């Protein structure tokens, strides 16, 4: 905290300004918000790993196979075990915020609840991921 008292001031008003230091641990809501923001760093990191794979693919079959082998290394598997829940939390946090970004949606004359919009988003994400997994399982030799 710090006072904003100017020297020689005669005005009896002396508004007291409070510091923002450590604001993020004043409320669990802020911690959850920062967790949402922080997980995006790991999302960006994973996007780089995928881009690296794309680049290795252009380098030929050997390079591509080496990248695939790298993904199957114990360090990589451990990283994926950490990243999976991080991605799940990040996805959930954005679907939770999604209704805030949309104008009111009407369905049969009634306004869709924000929790319904969030649930629909999560359901769509789960369905797309399942479809992708099934597709990949079908493609496997």
């Amino acid at each position, binding site marked *: *905290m710090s*006072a*904003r008292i100017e020297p020689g001031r005669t005005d*009896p*008003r*002396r*508004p*007291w*300004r*409070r510091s*923002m230091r450590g*604001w*993020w641990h*004043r*409320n669990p*809501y*802020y911690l959850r*918000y920062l967790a949402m*923001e922080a997980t995006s760093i790991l999302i960006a990191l994973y996007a780089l790993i995928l881009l690296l794979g794309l680049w290795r693919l252009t380098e030929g079959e050997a390079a591509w196979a080496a990248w695939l082998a790298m993904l199957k290394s114990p360090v990589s598997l451990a990283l994926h075990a950490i990243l999976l829940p991080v991605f799940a939390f990040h996805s959930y946090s954005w679907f939770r*915020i999604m*209704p*805030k*970004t*949309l*104008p*009111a949606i009407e369905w049969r004359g009634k306004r869709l609840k*924000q929790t319904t919009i969030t649930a629909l988003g999560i359901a769509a994400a789960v369905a797309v991921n399942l479809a992708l997994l099934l597709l990949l399982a079908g493609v496997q030799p």
Partner: protein
Amino acid sequence: MPDTARSIELEILRYLPESGHEPWYQVYEVPFEDDWSVLQGLQFIKDDLDSTLSFRWSCRMAICGSCGLMIDGVPRLGCRTFLRNYYPRRVRITALQHFPIERDLVIVADDFIDKLKRAKPWLIPKQARALADGEYLQSPAELAHYRQFSTCINCLLCYAACPQYGLDAEFAGPGILALLHRYNADSRDGGREQRMDLGHSDAGFWGCTAVAYCSEVCPKEVDPANAINQNKMGSAIDYLLRFVRPRGSGE
């Protein structure tokens, strides 16, 4: 004096500018009844224990928006928060966060008032009408389009909830931007262009990082986070269109 055997400790952040002291916490033991609000607890202190305590209040029924306080760190209206919900714990009460303290629980709201004018929170009619033309008609559906955002009572709880407002001196904040949206969304209004200088700026929608705690604490379910963030898509499209729109098109 209340007819009760129960009492609760209120720990209040005091600040008396003329004393030259920094703010300090003072604890009062307040006897209370089941239906007493935090505001009534403060009024008991003022009337019976310590007349030097300052706080704002007026209607005591969640309409005037005067008695916003941090109650155990959460922005709440003193008049609709009950002491019984905290008993037997001690309750900590401070002035609304992110505003300078004028005195005790009274904040300086000058910054909010100055920024409020920039949003032009009044109807700017699409077309001027003569009195003889009658009233501006609006359908229930058109009313529903903005009604939720029109119930703001300017209590500033959303400002006390918004860390961006505390960190960024330029940010107009949740309440003002919700009001800006309220008038833009009104079918009778034609002032959108005039308001969007603020809306599209960093002080407007883009100053919001979607913490969304403002909507949690709003006592009137205005949902400022929704008012702000539903404008970001339109604002982004508007920004990108500048690059493809012919020069001198006048838009």
